[in-house]
């Protein structure tokens, strides 16, 4: 088809006008009574922050008289951190693991070194843990981590190289084996049992390697794995965040899946932080700080529990939410792996333990 000249010219003008309109739309409005912040978060917090933002905006309007507009950005935690490093103007970040927040400090210097101690509980207002989602009736009889390596059991987990959530899965399995070998995790810090610890770590490496030999699909993110397990019907057990597992059951019906809580698991601490340099530039520090503090209030904790995150402080959280969370022995990344930076370098960076699992 040959465009007539005036049609072509018309199309060209439309293109130019739309560019102009689009560029104009990007400019900031400057109403003194309206304040905007951007919260850059990871995937499974969508529902939580949708509700929390509404509640906090009302709270903020009462307190300061300003109308607050909280905009959200969701995606894989690592990818979100990278966006902030590359210049996405986040006033606050609420990511899946401290390592990603710390990357923003290390790579872009947008916050001070002590960011994690500025808020209570390691700057993680709610927690979660890693549990197993199995098909109704638990046909494979999966009760604990060692059942994952039974013959013919097929495991679904995302790839720890691309998914923050999957790193928790991997470390939880590792910690289980250490606990089984050592009996007591405090031996990890006892110089006298260094030999036993080295042996236990060797065992744990074998164990984790064996688990990944039972993995048929390594999705890039946690939601992808959930879909593979739930909708494609692949695998016998999905290693998932507790909140994701609850959400799957809630959305797809309890007649199809059930949750199995292992004997021991990891305390997953999704970290939150004000991005100082950006908030200062935007003049939003006060509201950004109040926003994160409000997550620790009983209102914030209740909303976290409602959306299947374990609250830090059960006071004031209705019993109907609290009874969802079974008691389970939890260990932290710090006590078993000496913090995220160390765990990342040892296990997940190139040439680390995870890569060795897949060495030909």
């Amino acid at each position, binding site marked *: 088809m040959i465009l007539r000249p005036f049609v072509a010219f018309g199309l060209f003008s439309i293109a130019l006008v739309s560019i102009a309109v689009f560029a104009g739309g990007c400019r900031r409005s400057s109403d003194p009574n309206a304040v905007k912040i951007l919260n850059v978060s990871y995937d499974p917090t969508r529902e939580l922050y949708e509700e929390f933002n509404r509640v906090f905006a009302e709270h903020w309007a009462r307190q300061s008289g300003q109308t607050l507009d909280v905009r959200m950005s969701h995606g894989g935690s*690592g*990818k979100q951190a*990278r966006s902030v*490093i590359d210049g996405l103007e986040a006033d606050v970040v609420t990511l899946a693991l401290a390592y990603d927040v710390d*990357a923003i400090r290390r*790579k872009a210097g947008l916050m001070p070194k002590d960011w994690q101690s500025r808020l209570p509980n390691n700057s993680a207002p709610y927690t979660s843990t890693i549990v197993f989602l199995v098909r109704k009736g638990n046909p494979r009889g999966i009760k604990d981590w060692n059942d994952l390596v039974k013959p013919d059991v097929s495991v679904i987990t995302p*790839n720890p*190289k*691309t998914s923050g959530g999957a790193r928790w899965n991997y470390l939880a399995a590792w910690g289980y084996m250490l606990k089984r070998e050592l009996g007591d995790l405090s031996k990890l810090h006892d110089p006298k049992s260094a030999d036993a610890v080295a042996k236990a770590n060797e065992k744990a490496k074998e164990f984790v390697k064996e688990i990944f030999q039972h*993995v*048929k*699909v*390594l*999705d*890039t993110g946690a939601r*992808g794995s959930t*879909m593979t397990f739930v*909708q*494609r*019907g*692949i695998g016998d057990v999905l290693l998932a965040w507790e909140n994701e597992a609850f959400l799957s059951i809630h959305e797809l019906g309890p007649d199809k899946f059930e949750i199995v809580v292992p004997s021991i698991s990891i305390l997953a601490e999704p970290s939150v932080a004000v991005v100082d340099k950006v908030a200062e530039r935007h003049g939003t520090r006060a509201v950004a700080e109040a926003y994160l503090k409000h997550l620790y209030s009983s209102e914030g904790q209740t909303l976290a529990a409602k959306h299947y995150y374990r609250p830090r402080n059960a006071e004031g959280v209705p019993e109907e939410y609290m009874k969802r969370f079974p008691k389970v022995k939890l260990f932290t990344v710090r006590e078993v792996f000496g913090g995220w930076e160390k765990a990342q370098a040892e296990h*997940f*960076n*190139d040439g680390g333990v995870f*890569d060795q699992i*897949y*060495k*030909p």
Partner: protein
Amino acid sequence: MTLKQHSILPGFGLTMGFTLFYLSLIVLIPLAGLLLKSATISWDQFYAAVTDPQVVASYKITFGASLVAASVNAVFGLAVAWVLVRYSFPGKNIVDAMVDLPFAMPTAVSGIALTAIYAPNGWIGRWLDPLGIEVAYTQLGIMVALTFIGLPFVVRTLQPALEDMDVEIEEAAASLGATRLQTFVRVIFPAIMPALLTGFALAFARALGEYGSVVFISGNLPMKTQIVPLLIMTKLEQYNYAEAAAIAVVALGASFAVLLFINIVQWWSRRYAA
């Protein structure tokens, strides 16, 4: 030959200036950035990054699957284009429009849809599963996704070439005693060969860079079903921009070589076939 050729059409300076500016802005500057980024590591690190067994395996998978997908499209895309050009049938416009759908769909949507269909519990997967054929989460799945996204390139480049060819030429060949096969091999094929090669090259190039649809259907197992763009993503996930750029530079260089080769073949076939 003088450097400046005089042309009857005015405006050469302005349009050429615009072309250079536009190409620099859209293509050259980002590519230069990529090269600069990969130059921030030493040559040894660069070499180690691109020869890691996982990386080499993913190059093989990406280039292999793209080649297969582009070849499948070259054969079946030709059939589709032929039918759309030479015959008229009810609903032809709708079929014609359907060819463009893989262009228009967000690639993630295509990936999820294809996975849903080819998973062992999907519409097609459930019939293949008893036969022992696994598509989703294997290399075959990667090829299926790449074939899907590459189809429009072949069909759309072949259509004008076929439309330009008069039916009379075929009739002449037949009246001079050529068999159907001879007519196709000696008369039709040489005429559409350049267009077919272009379509093949475009589909191939598109497949090399495809990420969105493949990650859903491939299973992403290192050494088995991990594609190059995914590996680049995992490097970025470790904030290792330089090595990510290094892998990208090698992939880009290889694709450029392949495309250049196809262009040379095309130029050669145009020159000597005529």
